[in-house]
């Protein structure tokens, strides 16, 4: 983070309602610094990702050094500092899914979307992600489409779903 390029907003002149909701969460945690991760969870739920400005705002509210907030936000996989796509596709790469061919599923998804795992398509439609283990090993290989877990997937079934997103049929 460059210093002094962005002044931490003391209040939120943007009038963004989401910031008000975030404030309520911060208040509920009584501005406790150890609630940082809870607050980052709430912020990414509200905004979809953690923008630099937002991190500075949280740092200011909790009276924490921005480096600490940035450090925590970048340490954990679930926090993203870049916007995600409209649709999310998460491929489980746990051992059970791996043994049952999740690698092939991922490769065919990468081919279908022309992006690598972890990226978002240039039009901002689809994000392709991987998860370490969803704990749904009984129905491996598993893929999460916009939050809904689907089990026993194949390259064909996932590409069909992605095709629906790409062509806007759903």
């Amino acid at each position, binding site marked *: 983070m460059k210093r002094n390029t962005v002044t931490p907003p003391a209040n939120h002149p943007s009038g963004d309602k989401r910031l008000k909701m975030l404030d309520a969460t911060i208040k509920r945690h009584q501005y406790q*610094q150890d609630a940082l*991760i809870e607050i980052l969870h709430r912020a990414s739920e509200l905004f979809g990702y953690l923008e630099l400005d937002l991190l500075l705002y949280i740092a200011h509210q909790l009276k924490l050094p921005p480096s600490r907030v940035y450090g925590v936000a970048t340490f*954990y996989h679930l926090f993203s500092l870049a916007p995600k796509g409209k649709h999310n596709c998460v491929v489980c*790469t746990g*051992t059970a899914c791996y043994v*049952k061919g999740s690698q092939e599923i991922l490769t065919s998804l990468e081919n279908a979307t022309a992006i690598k795992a972890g990226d978002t398509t240039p039009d901002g439609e689809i994000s392709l992600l991987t998860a370490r283990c969803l704990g749904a090993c*009984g129905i491996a290989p598993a893929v999460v489409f916009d939050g809904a877990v689907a089990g026993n997937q194949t390259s064909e079934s996932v590409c069909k779903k992605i095709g629906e997103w790409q062509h806007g049929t759903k």
Partner: protein
Amino acid sequence: MELNELLEITRIEHDQTKPVQVRCCTAAGCLSSGSQAVKDNLDAAVKAAGLEDKIHVSGVGCMRLCCQGPLVQVDQESNKESKLFEQVKPEDSVKVIDAIEGKETNLKQQDLHQPFFTRQLPIVLENSGKIDPERIQSYIAENGYQGLYQVLREMKPSEVVETITKSGLRGRGGAGYPTGLKWATVAKSKGDKKYVICNADEGDPGAFMDRSVLESDPHRLLEGMAIAAYAIGASQGYIYVRAEYPIAIKRLETAIRQAQRLGLLGSQIFDSPFDFKIEIRIGAGAYVCGEETALMASIEGKRGVPHPRPPYPAESGLWGYPTLINNVETFANIAPIIRKGADWFAGIGTEKSKGTKVFALAGKIRNTGLIEVPMGTTLEEIVQEMGGGVPDGGIAKAVQTGGPSGGCIPASAFATPVDYESLTALGSMMGSGGMIVMDQTTNMVDVARFFMEFCMDESCGKCIPCRVGTVQLHDLLTKISDGKAAQADLELLEELCDMVKHTSLCGLGQSAPNPVFSTLKYFRDEYLALIR
């Protein structure tokens, strides 16, 4: 709350039991195959048929045979035999009612007399698939919270520790440290505050037993934690649970709220001077946070990096206070031990490993799902008899246990009884209990590389052996797997494994080379075949 109130709830619950119980699995596995719609349709069908007085439909926890979900179990007073229907579709609800009324249906029915079910010995999972995890009454009706009552009103904290020690229970998180000894250490530690933490950060890929307990029987965990808190003198508890388990989090929140409302958590529980509160802390996706010191750093709102021990959490843990950390399955064993006694528990299992262990059976195997078996059951029994072997005529080549910290056990060693010591002797470990079966098509060098990639990604970066070593190991494994390596690379690989194992700061790095060691030990020819 008094004991008679607890018994009153039990009585009402039993009185209201209808002649026919229809249980629909609403744990994560079945939910993702559409079991919510199945349950909703069953509800509607019962209503439409006007059978509400006779049939009760409930959502329950995991029924274990996850691969055949959605599962629906029917218990009838008039018929002793339970029926378990598999792959039930939402439109099948009328057929289920037909089956209850004795009509012929083409619903697929699972044989409850097959070894997958009959060889199980449920202690941790005794209520799983039986009770509604979202209703505290349902848990109380199965003797729930009676253990806590017994402890608070009839036992001294030292007696509780003594009972757990005598039971021989060992930590189910993987390392197998004696639970009673841990409790005794924290109980002895001096501090004006103490904490109890439940480690529900089940990060091992291929393990989902903790998830199942959280989703199927959350009150069992709360009761176990409360008993632990009384024994060691804590009044605040935390459950650190993965964000990847949203259903588990929701059910835990519900359970805590319900227990508080009934006065089973909070102040002066059972009119004793004992206060205990539990808060949930949601993880943010970091495997290393399963390590206890890293987990505590994360609860404190910091980066989840471990710190050297000693001091151990038992002396200086969360915010510097004495802290007891146990895994979900460990806490889930506590209430039954109190209720049924230490001797009962110590009578199950092997000499050094007491009780049962829940395993998540997955991979190339016919019956995937959860099993709970006494310690000492052999891998052969688990894989071939309970798991039904590899489908499509395949042959089991190895079983991977213990996740990235464990190793691959070859088929030639399947006669081994499963307990902490025997798995360690084979170069693997119990771990949290994931068991992934691999068949002839699995390339073991690839498997080792897969786990190394995992450890490389998940290394927190604090210590150099782990941060740099895992990357180098991964590169070497890739080189071998691409057929570009020479004999010298293999020697380098072994040397580096040794170094990472002995010089890393925490369990993640120390155990990262294990999958390489075990595949090298048992499947060396696969490595050699790839060497130039």
